[in-house]
């Protein structure tokens, strides 16, 4: 009896916490774990009217189709390169933004800046892509108007394959940095102010404080965010690319997810799309495990698990 009581203590004492956990569990079971059963359609020639039980099995046929497609290497390269651009340029951007915001003394200016950088996150990609296409237009875009004023030639940015990765990354940085900076700002707010006082007493200048106090304090956050980011580099959501894409620049802009969209949704080829999606997930898993192992080797307390 006594033992039982102790066991239940955590359940009783923290029941609000346990109750708060329920929606999360339900969400994950309902939307993440149950649908996993559906991946078997990657091995079938699936028809929604026959259902999973009635659709014929085709083995690895759809995987073969994907790997032998002339587009396989192209979409893999583009996906990884766009992901890499995003990692190299997109990942540090919110950290720098957070550090800059954190360094601001003037409160109103800080708040206004934070709001302005945060807002693009809430604008739909359809609108963002429309604005970007207009700004980059050779005839009516501001960027080319500026170039012409400067005596330079106007460039049709969206029709030259070499610009696509850069443009895509810049748009992502402008749109998402403000939102991603929030988590770093929270980490920065959590730093013990006595550390700064001590550093100040020891005569550390502000750059030195940044290097020896601020950065070490948020390194665990940065590492965890990095691991999560690495897992996502391969899954570029299709609409972001599709909205900026056109036939002329397909050689740098076609990625795995747009291929899945074309085959899966436009052609209603669910099984093929599932097979490719499964491949995408597999690569992401390898990347996450790899970066986690790396983080654990470097600094044991900041890996995910």
């Amino acid at each position: 009896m006594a033992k039982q009581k102790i066991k239940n203590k955590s359940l009783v004492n923290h029941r609000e916490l346990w109750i708060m956990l329920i929606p999360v569990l339900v969400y994950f079971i309902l939307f993440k774990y149950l649908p996993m059963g559906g991946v078997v359609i990657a091995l079938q020639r699936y028809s929604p009217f026959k259902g999973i039980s009635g659709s014929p099995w085709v083995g690895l046929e759809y995987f073969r189709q994907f790997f032998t497609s002339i587009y396989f290497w192209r979409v893999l390269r583009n996906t990884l390169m766009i992901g890499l651009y995003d990692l190299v340029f997109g990942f540090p951007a919110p950290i720098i933004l957070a550090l800059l915001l954190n360094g601001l003394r003037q409160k109103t200016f800080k708040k206004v800046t934070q709001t302005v950088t945060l807002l693009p996150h809430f604008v739909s990609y359809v609108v963002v892509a429309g604005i970007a296409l207009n700004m980059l237009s050779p005839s009516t875009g501001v960027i080319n108007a500026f170039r012409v004023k400067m005596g330079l030639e106007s460039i049709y940015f969206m029709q030259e394959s070499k610009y696509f990765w850069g443009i895509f990354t810049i748009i992502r940085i402008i749109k998402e940095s403000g939102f991603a900076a929030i988590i770093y700002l929270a980490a920065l707010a959590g730093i013990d102010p006595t550390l700064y006082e001590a550093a100040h007493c020891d005569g550390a200048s502000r750059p030195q404080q940044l290097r020896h106090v601020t950065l070490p304090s948020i390194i665990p956050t940065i590492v965890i965010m990095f691991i999560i980011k690495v897992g996502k580099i391969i899954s570029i959501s299709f609409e972001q690319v599709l909205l900026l894409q056109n036939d002329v620049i397909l050689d740098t802009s076609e990625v795995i997810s747009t291929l899945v969209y074309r085959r899966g949704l436009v052609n209603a080829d669910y099984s093929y799309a599932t097979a490719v999606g499964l491949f995408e997930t597999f690569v992401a898993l390898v990347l996450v495990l790899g970066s986690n192992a790396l983080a654990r080797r470097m600094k044991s307390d900041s890996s995910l698990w």
Partner: protein
Amino acid sequence: MKKRLLIPLLMIAVTGFLSAAGGQESASSEDGSVTLDVWAAKAAELQVDTASLANWKAVEEATGVKLNWSLISTEVKDEQFNLVMTSGDLPDVMAYYEGKSGFSSVNKFGIEGAFLPLEDLIRENAPNLKAALLDDPKVKEAITASDGNIYYIPMLSALNAARGWYIRYDWLEAVGKDVPTTTEELYDVLVAFKNEDPNGNGEADEIPMVFRRRGDDAFYNLGALAYAFDSDPGWIVRNGKVVFGPSEAQYLDYLNYIAKLYKEGLIDQEILTRAGNPRNDLFGKNLAGTIHDWFASTASLNDTLGDEIKGFNLRHMAPPVGTAKEPFTRIQMSKVRGDGGWAISYSNDDPVATIKMMDYLFSAEGSKLMNFGVEGETYEMKGSVPTYTDKITNNPDNGFHESLVTYGMQWKIGMQQEIEYEKQFANAIATAARIDYMDNYIVDEFPILSFTEDEQMIIDDKFSQIKLYTAEMTARAMVGAISPSDFKKTFDELNKMGLKEVTAIYQAAYDRKY
């Protein structure tokens, strides 16, 4: 997972309600006449007195079926339909459509058992419907639901012309040129549009030729220029042989032509990236000279822009001819209108009388009642042509179409729109264009083929890549990223991608059908 649960639940709900509601509908009186409750949508601003509609009285006399209409305002028809469906208390006949997606809800609920499958009913009782719907493979294909059944009788359009060429007649006058008929004349006109300032603002800002894309298909309209060179952006049949247009030599002629136009700035330079509606935008700014687009909406620019832009006169022209023998287009639309038709409910007690009534509307006599109403009232015969009277053409209360509706005609039900109606209908520019295209230029399109599952598998794999590759290379050739002669290499590439195999499959499917 979730969906698989939902559908059986819905089915149970719907059929449960249906069995509860059955029996109280369609009262047959003793003299054999039948009364049917009909649910239909109607624009809210129109006053329709359903008790005094002469043409529907005539239908009642001819068929013995009395219709008891409930006319729902079009603004709330979608939610009303959903309410009726969930309540389960279905009227005998429902005329419900959903704008763009047409009859998908009717088909969906039909599959779940809410509406009767009609094919056997039609074969046994309705010769006119059989001729109009079942014997026309294109119509039949368009109205067949995914389970192979037909759940509604559609409204059929008389015109199959969809899209065609339009050009600014006032600009032609300004530069002193005639309507171009060949690709060379068209080129000259476009050059003149570009250089001679037809909009008269002193700047060379004219974009001689503009196109709208559809989704990411940039060649949705531009591709019509291929016909000028007897080529085609898709599949075609030549003497019984199925061929993929872009794999033929004359596709290069088309590519050379569009590359030349693009290079000289005659085609909108931003055709691949322009957002929004470049047609309304560029014509609205008085910058565009010619376009290939939908007839009705393009012709309506004359109404919307006529006041703003002095002399604005956008008229259709024949498809230009290059190396082809004569002007033609393969672009056309299905006769089945997505926004009209009706279905018979599960709870209808007398489906045979109902289908016979629907069949009558497709007879010569019934069709006239639906298109022109009652002779001497809404139309008179001039020679052999039924002609609308002042009640329709010159009604003080309503416009042309609205008058027809208030007199019980041209409702969104299963009926056949007659060509004479189209000819007498308001926007003369669009109708003239459509009739001209229909009479003179439209040739058969590539038929809809059906494939076996194994064939479909190869098509999904190989042809989807071939299609994407062709679009990519065509776009690159147009903007000059590759020269059209480089495109020749595409032919080899296409063969490597399995074009021969795919063509053989199309050929086999074609041979099975014809």
